[in-house]
Each structure stands twice: as C-alpha cells, then as structure tokens.
C-alpha cells in the first residue's frame, strides 16, 4: 500500500511540471515533420516510392526508435533534476528505503514514458495518414498495423524512460545523464556493431523495429526480451547506485 502511494506521488511529480508538455510539443513537431516529408518529399528519382506500399508506409510511420530515444532523455532529465533541485531529499525522507523509492519512480517513468510513446505514435500516424490522403494516395496500414506500431512505440518509450532514469540516478547531473542516455541509445550501438556484426540484431533500433513489425531480424519474443533488458539493466544499475551512497 505504501509503495502504491509512492508511485502516485511520483506520477503527480511528473505531471505537475511543464516537462511532459514540452515533450508532447516536440512530438507535435516531429509529426509535423513527418507530414511535411509526405507532402513535399520525394525519392531520388522524384517519385513517392517511399510511401508506395504498405511496408513502406509502416516503415515511415513506425515511431518506436524515436519514442525510445525521446523517452530516454525524458527519464534522464526527470531523475537527474531531482538532484539538481534537491527534491531528492524529500523523496528519500518520505521513503528512506531507497530501493522502494527508486522503484516507485521508475514505475512512474515507465507509465508516463509509455503514454508519451502512445501520443507520439498516434500523432505521427494521424499526421502521416492525413498527408498521404491529401496527396491522393491510399493509406495502406491495417488496424492491426496501427495497433502494433502504437503498442511498440509505447513499450519502447516505457523502457527508454527507465533506461534514462537509471542513467539519471547513476550520474545525478542532468547534462551527464542525457549524455549517457544518448551514448547508450545512439552512439554506442553502431560502434559495437562495427566490432561485432552479430550485435546488430540486438541494438535498440533493430529490436524496436522487430517489435513494430518493420524488421524481421529476430523473433518478436526475443526482441521483446532484448527491449526490456535495454531498459531494465540500466535501471537496476541506477537503483543499486543510490543504495550505497549518501543522498546529499
């Protein structure tokens, strides 16, 4: 019961600042960019081949990788700013059992990150669909495609948010936490793939594409497990870090 109260407090914490709305505004901008690309963008030969088939449209509108990246930044900033503003003090005074406090915070990030993923995917699909229809092309995605893209975006964002949260708890400095999240999600994966080609199957963008129904590099179950590990391992490291050190 006490733990559920902590989750509720963390959800209220996230919902009572402008930060989620700033991220929603960014999602609106991204969806507008998608619509603009559909309206005025072309392939090298001047055609609209990039939206010609159902697979093309699914690939264009799959939002999972973006959602994971964006939510990773959201989680990193949300946790690191607790240290910047000193609000980590009342947080750990309310629950001095730090594992409980951190797990409540990560669950709240998982929920809000998942919601941001839903909003991002929904906005992108709506903007893409409207702009495709506006240029007299058919919107080819099925209801099943749409549901899978939205669900994949939600899961990717949820796990991305707790990855960022783990980075924030570990580094405690907002700039540093954002850097770690970017490093984990964008910079490190291609470098690792350079060293070990087989690793390409398991980098965030690939597993998210498999979950979205865009890629086929591995099974859906394996991709889901890999996606979860990308979020859970950094989160667990973050929880472990706050157990041992002084809060302030």
């Amino acid at each position, binding site marked *: 019961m006490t733990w559920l109260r902590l989750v509720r407090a963390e959800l209220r914490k996230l919902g009572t600042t402008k930060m989620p709305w700033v991220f929603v505004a960014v999602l609106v901008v991204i969806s507008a960019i998608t619509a603009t690309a559909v309206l005025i963008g072309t392939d090298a030969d001047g055609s609209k081949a990039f939206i010609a088939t159902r697979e093309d449209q699914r690939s264009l509108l799959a939002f999972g990788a973006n959602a994971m990246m964006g939510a990773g930044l959201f989680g990193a900033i949300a946790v690191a700013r607790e240290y910047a503003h000193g*609000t980590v003090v009342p947080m750990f*005074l*309310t629950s001095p059992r730090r594992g409980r406090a951190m797990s409540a915070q990560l669950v709240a990030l998982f929920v809000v990150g998942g919601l941001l993923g839903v909003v991002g995917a929904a906005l992108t699909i709506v903007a893409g669909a409207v702009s495709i229809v506006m240029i007299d092309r058919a919107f080819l995605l099925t209801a099943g495609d749409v549901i899978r893209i939205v669900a994949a975006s939600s899961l990717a964002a949820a796990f991305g948010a707790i990855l960022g949260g783990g980075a924030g708890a570990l580094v405690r400095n907002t700039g540093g936490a954002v850097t770690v999240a970017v490093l984990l999600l964008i910079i490190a994966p291609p470098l690792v793939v350079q060293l070990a080609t087989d690793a390409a199957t398991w980098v965030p963008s690939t597993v998210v594409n498999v979950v979205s129904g865009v890629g086929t590099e591995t099974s859906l179950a394996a991709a889901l497990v890999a996606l979860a590990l990308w979020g859970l391992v950094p989160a667990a490291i973050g929880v472990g870090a706050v157990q041992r050190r002084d809060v*302030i």
Partner: protein
Amino acid sequence: MTPMHALRFEHVTKRYGGTTVVRDLSFEVEPGRVTGFLGPNGAGKSTAMKVLLDLASADGGRATIGGRRYRELENPPRTVGVVLEPNAFHPGRSGRNHLRVLADGVGVPKARIEELLVLVGLGDVGDRHVGAYSLGMRQRLGLAAALLGDPPVLVLDEPGNGLDPQGIRWLRDLLRERAAQGTTVFVSSHLLAEVEHLADEVVVINRGRLVATGAIADLQDAGISVRTPSPSQLSTTLREAGATVDSTDDGALHVRSMPIEVIGDHAHRAGIALHELSARPGSLEELFLGWVDGDETSDAAQTQQEEVVRV
C-alpha cells in the same frame, strides 16, 4: 496521546574522504523541549542531522529517533518533520502541488494541505510557482511540508533563514507551542539571539565535536551586568557571597554564578545604589564564542604539545 520520541546520538562519526566532519558525537534531545543545535559554519551540524535522517551513513556510532533508526520508522514523515534544504523544490511546481506530491507519499488528506498553507501564510500564493517565491516563502513552504504528517518530532536546519521579523516570531511561537504539546524540537541555527529566545536547551558543536550541552538557563548563569557608583564595594560584597565578578571595559561589573535577584538583594542590604541590573545582552553569544574559542585554544595547545613531544 502523542508518542514521545527522544533523539539520541551515540558516538557518531562521519568522514568525507580524509576529513572527519563529525567526531564521536554523543548527546540526547528530549521531547517537550526546544533544543538549539549551535556551531560555527562547517561545524558538522547539517551532517549530523543528515546522519540522523539516514541521508548520509555514519562511519561509526548511530543516531536514533525513539530508539529506532530513521529508516526503521513506519511511514517516517508521520514521526519526523524535516526542514533541511531551503531550496529543495522544483521551481516550476506550485507550492500547493509540492505539498500534494508529499501528501500522496505520506498518505495525508488534501484538507491538511489547505490547512497548512493557511497556517504558514501561503494560502493566497499556493498556486504560484515556487521559483517565484522569496526565500522566506520557501522556508514557510518547507515548514508546511515538515508539519504535513503532524509528527511528534521536528528536525529543522536553519528554519529562520530568510524569514522577516514577523516570520521569526511566528516560527518561535509555533515551535514553542509544538514543544509544549510534547513535540521534540531540534533546531539548528547560527542566529544565537534567536536561539536564546527560542530554545530550552542547547547542544554546541565545533569541528564535529561536542563542546557544550545543557539547559540555556543553567549555561547562562554567568551573564548579569551591574552598574553602580560603588563598584569596588559591590564587587567585594558579591565575591564574599560566592559570585564571580569581573570589571568590563565600559565600567560595568560582569557577575556570574549568582541569580539576578540575589545580586539586587545583596546590594540593597549593603546600601549600595544600583544604576543598572540586567541580564547581559548577547550572553549566549559570549558563551558560544567562549566555548568555540576555548575548544580551538585547547586544540592548539594539544597540537603544540604534540609538536613538542615530536621534537
């Protein structure tokens, strides 16, 4: 009936790197009293409080609240109200929402938030972002947060910082009232005059070590200023009665170890006119400086002795 909780520091030591910030610190803070926690900047007051609140781990000893560590308390904000960092707020969150977040975690009804906002004088500005609050308003919000769970223990680090004179008076009345109801009030401050008005007891530390503790009234038994046209005659009379008497630079007598009314009685019986008989203003300050300087002098002497031994 409100449960009573004494605070107990038992040989607490805390080091940061190679520096010992709190050194073998032992003392007790009683319920139903206001205890001032004094020390110069960097004396280790905030660190000691952080150890008590399990925000920092002790390298030795332990600090307990009613016999239990902070982390062992069931729903700790229901037992201990804390003001520790004057700026521990998100500047973009309103004061009301700050309290709502805490109330969710503690399990306090919304009505209590409104009650506290009014109590601390923020009823009209509860929806304003904390970033727009003055330091005094943030201190009041911090106090509201500390009182949220109606705890029987208050641990307050410099709660008077930024408060205007009315605010200081309001704080003093609030803490005295809470103490009268049985609350354990442990308050650090560098405003000695304020502590003198507020506290029943003081704990003084310097460089992490305890240098004095006890009831202010007992510790201040030295501070009576007397002016008379017959200083030498009065000095002799009072010394014979057991007082310690010193002459001050401004011609007054500084009398210790004798209550103010007894000094008056002796003067009256000896037929000595008095032009002033008053508790020395700022005497806690003098005592404080004496304790701290004494501690440092003793340290210097010890160091010198050690150096001599080494030579």
